[in-house]
């Protein structure tokens, strides 16, 4: 943390060393669009990125006179699912409220949101960071509607010569996840966000896209002398659209606040925006300029009584969460923690791994391959295994050849690379091209002898005690067999001959 502060205050031109030992207090507010088919209060498609401007709109999400909202049941279900995944309590009774403010992207002049009776309260999210267990409280998870989007001819609305409004996003279900101020560093904030995003994607409620804004984060940051309990003056930071931006903005803000106090200045409650290009937060709005949202119960919607049965139904359908799943895989499959974390990064990835193991591939082999070569190809080609040409069927076949000793791993990797996009039956290809592993002791013996003759220096070095000197000799044999030789057998034969 000290290092972090030094870096960030250096960016500010500060001296870098604080007189008082400060502790940062960070709370994050996440807005996540729900992956429902239709919008929060009307039947319009909830997708908007691909659509032509204002194509996915109707009188309801355009806020036209006389139109009324109707609650999307699936959105409520997804929010409850999220709340349960975050260990929240679901009250029996919830209602929607109107948050009144005037802005061109808000067609009704108010946002239907929740104020004093949210859908869920009192949860928490736990994660490991640098060998420590961090627990962050969740104040509430609730449900509201997104606004439209503005496109200015100019920087901001106030100075634009003209602005265009696209209401495709208007009314898209938006979940607000308010975290307690339990985080103490930018690194914790970033880790919390990544874990939260992972869970939301795991349970299928959000696509986790920070760039396109389907997963957005605001941070509340304050500092206080370490060891004290009172909260400092809170600053809200907006406009961060990557994990890196969140980390940098929070680091910057902590350093800025310390620098202000160290310089004898005082902090005031305000909203600041992160400006990526400048690597700094700038003041947007002070507390005095804060809106009076005039919240009141939404009279167009009856209060919502979810019922224990509904909540239990959602709870039963909740998938195993990433942490629990990784723990189970370590326990049941005997794979390493590193492999388990990699394989459970996404639900699809973990499902794929378990399907492959379920088809007879040994857990260790499946974990190694999926965690390394397959993952590398999937990332390089932006195509997960199950959508690739090879597919899970192809990989199972290929790993079957490896496990049976029919091909060696060099051949298998080359085949994986070749077939990942193009597809094909590994068994047939190995047979047709004669790629089967050469494990004939006589045939290999002759090649080994030739290799020893061809590499006198390496042989001498090995015999002088240099273990690695054997590699070029093995390589010679592999080359002669076009990579098909059983490497283990070649090694054994070499050692037998050279030690003799």
């Amino acid at each position, binding site marked *: 943390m000290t290092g972090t502060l030094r870096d960030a205050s250096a960016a500010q031109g500060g001296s870098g060393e604080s007189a008082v030992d400060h502790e940062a207090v960070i709370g994050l507010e996440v807005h996540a669009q729900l992956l429902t088919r239709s919008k929060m209060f009307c039947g319009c498609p909830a997708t908007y990125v691909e659509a032509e401007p204002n194509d996915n709109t109707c009188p309801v999400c355009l*806020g036209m006179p*006389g139109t009324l909202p109707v609650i999307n049941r699936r959105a409520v279900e997804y929010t409850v699912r999220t709340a349960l995944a975050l260990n929240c309590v679901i009250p029996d009774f919830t209602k929607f409220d109107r948050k009144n403010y005037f802005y061109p992207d808000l067609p009704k*002049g108010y946002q239907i949101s929740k104020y004093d009776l949210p859908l869920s309260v009192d949860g928490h999210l736990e994660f490991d960071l640098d060998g420590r267990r961090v627990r962050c409280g969740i104040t509430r998870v609730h449900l509201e509607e997104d606004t439209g989007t503005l496109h200015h001819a100019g920087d901001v609305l106030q100075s634009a010569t003209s602005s265009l409004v696209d209401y495709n996003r208007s009314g898209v279900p938006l979940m607000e996840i308010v975290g307690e101020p339990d985080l103490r560093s930018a690194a914790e904030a970033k880790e919390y966000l990544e874990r939260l995003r992972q869970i939301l994607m795991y349970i299928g409620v959000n696509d986790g896209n920070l760039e396109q804004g389907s997963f957005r984060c605001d941070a509340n940051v304050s500092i206080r002398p370490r060891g004290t309990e009172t909260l400092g003056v809170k600053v809200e930071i907006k406009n961060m659209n990557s994990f890196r931006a969140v980390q940098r903005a929070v680091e910057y803000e902590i350093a800025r606040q310390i620098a202000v106090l160290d310089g004898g200045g005082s902090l005031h409650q305000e909203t600041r925006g992160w400006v990526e290009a400048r690597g700094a937060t700038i003041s947007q709005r002070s507390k005095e300029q804060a809106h*009076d949202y*005039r919240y009141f119960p939404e009279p167009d919607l009856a209060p919502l009584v979810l019922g224990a049965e509904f909540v239990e139904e959602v709870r039963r359908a909740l998938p195993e969460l990433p942490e629990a799943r990784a723990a189970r895989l370590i326990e049941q499959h005997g794979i390493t923690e590193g492999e388990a974390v990699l394989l459970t990064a996404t639900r699809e990835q973990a499902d794929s791994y378990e399907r492959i193991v379920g088809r007879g591939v040994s857990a260790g082999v499946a974990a190694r391959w999926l965690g390394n070569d397959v993952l590398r190809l999937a990332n390089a080609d932006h195509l997960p295994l199950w959508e690739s040409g090879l597919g899970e069927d192809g990989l199972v076949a290929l790993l079957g050849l490896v496990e049976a000793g029919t091909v060696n791993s060099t051949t298998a990797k080359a085949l994986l690379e070749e077939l990942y996009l193009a597809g094909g039956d590994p068994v047939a290809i190995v047979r047709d091209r004669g790629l089967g592993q050469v494990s004939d002791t006589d045939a290999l013996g002759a090649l080994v002898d030739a290799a020893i003759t061809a590499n006198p220096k390496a042989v001498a070095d090995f015999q002088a005690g240099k273990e690695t000197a054997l590699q070029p000799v093995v390589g010679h044999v592999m080359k002669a067999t076009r990579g098909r030789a059983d490497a283990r057998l070649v090694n054994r034969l070499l050692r037998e001959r050279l030690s003799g």
Partner: protein
Amino acid sequence: MSAAPETLAGCVAALRAGTVSAAELLERSRARIAALDPQVNAFLGRTGELADRAAAAADRLLAEDPASAPPLCGVPVALKDVLCLEGAETTAGSRILGGFRPPYTATAVQRLLDAGAVVVGKTNCDEFAMGSSNENSAYGPVRNPWDLGRVPGGSSGGSAAAVAARMVPLSLGTDTGGSIRQPAALCGVVGFKPTYGRVSRYGLIAFASSLDQVGPLALTVEDAALGYLLIAGHDPADGTSSRSAVEDPLTGLGEGVEGLRLGVPREYFGVGLDPGVRAAVERALEVLRGLGATLEEVSLPSTDAALSTYYIIAPAEASSNLARYDGIRFGLREDRGSLLQTYLSTRDAGFGPEVKRRIMLGTYALSSGYYDAYYRKAQKVRTLISEEFSHVFERVDAIVCPTSPVTAFPLGTHSDPLSMYLLDVLTVPVNLAGLPGVSVPCGMVGGLPAGLQVVAPRFMDARALRIAHAYEQATEWHTLQPGGVEAAAT
């Protein structure tokens, strides 16, 4: 054609019997409007070709098989201009919605269309349904067919006057604090506000969402009951619409009041009640007693708090509901170059003084620091009022009382908004409690109609109509025709 029936039931029967056609009824309706509306100003817009096509379609259906034609097939109706009809200009009586043609139709209106009704036009009303005299319309006041120097009541004044002047046999109005019942009383027709949640509000331009309700105005209780039956019922497009089954008010309409216990709330006969209206209502109560009902004095002690409660909750909701009128997406735009100036100028030019007053009142009541003192307290009193009604309904089957404390007053009488608000004192408690209430003509005071109000427990809409019907059938007030407008037209 001169013998064409005036009532809704009469029109339906004649259409089915083939003694009159939908085209003829439409023509007669238009002729009445052409002759009388220059004085009355009940209509803001006519539907023209739309109505011609609907009438022609109705006549084809009636010619094919009158028995299976939909219930209102070929009957001309009028809609308060807060109800959206696809393609027809819908202004809510406001300049800010001038030229607005909604691309959708209100559910209640659609149900009338599905029942074969022919929409003749949109009726004048107080701007955004805010008013009790129709003087707050941006398109000029409606005049009472009984006396053109007087108001028709409001805010559904155009819908009440159109029925009273026999321009249409049925109109739809909306009632947020008495806006169907009070003009019905002042124009001598029947007006029914159903239980909140009984009729869909989808497509109704909102004034105060937790109070607004659509309902019929007609010449008889039977007609109002039929109109109500056709528009009532659950609508998936309105999250506050009730899923409970609608009781058909027509089946038990004639069962009378024998054995029913009727509560007479003493607070509804207090100061401000016109002595003539009081006398008319007291005679009406005697009629009901004569029909076998038991009358019992009851008390609704929070009645005097209802008005101030209403005038906090309704403006609070209105201030939010009317935020969408920004001059950008529909209706009036006063373009002033910058966005903020365009907003300000549009809202300044588009809203009338009463609407601005309520937006300011409501904004204030919801403001941080004042919310608890006003809005929250008002909600508590609202609950109390509701509970008092429930308590009274444990002892009586319905409540009977005056609809309006006064008869129709001359235009310009209430220049002070507070004295106008006081006129709503007998109707707003019913909205606050979400109850069904019907106003039925119960006498003439100085040549002007008075109304009797019947209020029933929630979802006992049929019971309110049955009691009103029993009274109406025992008297002849509903058969009287306004002379004022006829005299002016000739």
